[in-house]
């Protein structure tokens, strides 16, 4: 893979609440390569958004980054002052938020909102910035851009507003674009349009994207690599093919099995039993053990390390330890691997 652009090392983030200290992120390490799209998946409360907001240093006041490093351009973002962060935010690292209906300022024209970061970071005059805003509107396919620049957010639909939010994020050609569930609040057809837009934009401007989602369909559509998060940790990371066709972590199995497929033969949709761990008092050992039908004794005592599956594929489960007993992996998951291999073979045959 290409050059590293961002590296997170052993990040720990916690929130002080009335109930106690919630350890939202507990030792996340990952790298983002130039030009790639990394998907962060996991259920609510797994620490995806908190990880992203830590990169932007946009956590709420009761949050504290307890330890870890976030290296960008050879410098640790966590040791930067607020002022220094302001020069990075919106310029080098930009963010797209979840709900386009509330992400835009209702009392300011959208043109001004798009021009704002350009004026701020590139020190352009108002009229020059407006010209760039117009280009951005064309880039994100807003019809009649000249006229629409002067409109207010309430005059746009949800999908168009998300296009505008994306235009704001792209305003200063950021090196990293963090998209925090940008399609979750949109309906299915609009979701597909926004994903297509993001893909085509990435080709044009070659920025690296961290894409947070809990929608595996979206992941398959957009990502190069996938990091699966659970209980504030990354439990499995690999390329899209590795995660979708050769998953190693039982949690990933559960996630994949709970997505209905066209050739599903089961009567009812699979759901992972139990509920996510209480991060006020995280369990000892493997976080997923309580909900894991393949849990081993060792899971209750020791946290599994990241086992290497391939150069790009790592998973944190004791099942990968050479001493672990052989288990029968779920039929539908095993079938994925067979399907993938045969597809590859037929692809090779066709070429051959």
């Amino acid at each position, binding site marked *: 893979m290409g050059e590293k652009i961002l590296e997170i090392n052993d990040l720990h983030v916690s929130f002080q609440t009335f109930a106690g200290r919630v350890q939202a992120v507990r030792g996340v390490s990952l790298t983002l390569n130039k030009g790639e799209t990394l998907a962060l998946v996991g259920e609510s409360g797994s620490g995806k958004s908190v990880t992203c907001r830590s990169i*932007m240093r*946009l956590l709420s006041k009761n949050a504290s980054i307890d330890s870890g490093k976030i290296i960008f351009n050879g410098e640790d973002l966590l040791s930067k002052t607020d*002022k220094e*962060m*302001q*020069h*990075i*935010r*919106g*310029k080098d690292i*930009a*963010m797209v*938020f979840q*709900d386009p209906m*509330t*992400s*835009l*300022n*209702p*009392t*300011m024209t959208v043109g001004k909102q798009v021009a*704002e*970061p350009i004026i*701020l*970071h590139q020190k352009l005059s108002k009229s020059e910035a407006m010209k760039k805003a117009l280009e951005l509107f064309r880039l994100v396919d807003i019809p009649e851009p000249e006229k629409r620049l002067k409109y*207010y957010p*309430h005059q746009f639909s949800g999908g168009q507003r998300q296009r505008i*939010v994306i235009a*704001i*994020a792209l305003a200063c050609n950021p090196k990293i674009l963090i998209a925090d569930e940008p399609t979750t609040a949109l309906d299915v057809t609009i979701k597909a349009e926004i994903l297509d837009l993001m893909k085509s934009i990435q080709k044009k401007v070659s920025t690296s994207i961290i894409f947070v989602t809990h929608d595996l369909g979206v992941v398959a559509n957009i990502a190069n690599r996938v990091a699966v998060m659970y209980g504030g940790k990354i439990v499995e990371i690999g390329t899209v093919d590795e995660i979708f066709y050769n998953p190693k972590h039982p949690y990933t199995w559960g996630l994949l099995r709970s997505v209905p497929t066209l050739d599903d033969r089961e009567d009812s949709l699979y759901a992972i039993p139990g509920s996510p761990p209480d991060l006020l008092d995280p369990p000892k050992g493997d976080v997923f053990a309580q909900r894991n039908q393949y849990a081993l004794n060792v899971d209750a005592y020791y946290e599994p390390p990241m086992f290497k599956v391939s150069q790009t594929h790592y998973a944190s489960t004791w099942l990968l330890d050479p001493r672990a007993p052989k288990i029968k992996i779920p039929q539908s998951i095993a079938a994925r691997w067979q399907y993938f291999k045969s597809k590859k073979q037929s692809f090779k045959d066709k070429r051959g």
Partner: protein
Amino acid sequence: MSGFFRFILKRIVYMLITLLLISSCTFLLMNFLPGSPYGNEEKLTNKQREVMNERYGLNKPLGERYIIYMSGMLKGDFGISLQFGDQPVRSILSKRIGPSLQLGIQAMILGTSVGIILGMIAAMFQNSFIDAIVSLIAIIGRSVPNFVFAVLLQLLFAVYLKLFPIALWDKGFLSTVLPTVALSVSPMADSARFIRTEMIEVLNSDYIELARAKGMSEWRVAFKHGLRNALIPLITILGPMSVSLMTGSLVVENIFAIPGIGEQFVKSIMTNDYSTIMAVTMLYSTMLVTIILFVDILYGIVDPRIRVGGGEY
């Protein structure tokens, strides 16, 4: 644009109807006031009273008097004062409206702008020491009546420090400072409280987060993106605030011996000076409905989502 003008026209018609209703009600109610406009009533003989009633037209039936009065008012004639040496009410009031209006406007501007700044600072440093101080100021300003501040200001700045005149309306702008400050305390407290609450909510909203993600400093975020949105609910209370300012100024005008409308109003009610009561009521009502119209227009300027009549301005 035409939608906007149609809106204004419609509102002005409604305003005139409102004023007509207010004047009719006041005219009727005034009739039930005990006593007569003549200060030395017990010394008057029946004959004298008849002559006087004849002269002022008070012997005519209520309906007829109403028609006479209203037709006069439409021509801008508010009659003559029964109290002040038969001067036309119009000239009495036009002399006195200046000070009241000036004080009201100055107090409103001072009060809301200081209140907005205090409220914003309190919201940005929520739960800090500064926040507590602002809340304290707001509570004191809201609960202590303005005439108490008026007297305290007189004592401190006029008696001890001798910076401003203690009373009267003869030193130009200097004379207006203390009454303006005294009057501005309650709008200041109200707007500080409002802006703080609103700003806290606004600062937690998604578009503020997006503005932060653009790399803007916290102050810039608060002023450029927060303030305008936090102002919207404040506009709602501008109307009631100006009303309480107008009525509240009655006492403050008295304390500072300012020849304003408020003082005149109290006197005219106590002496059954019918034509003055009517004129002052109409003056206050006109001001109020105008403020309400102004507030509605202001809404649209601040919040593009509720621009009236679909107009763009």
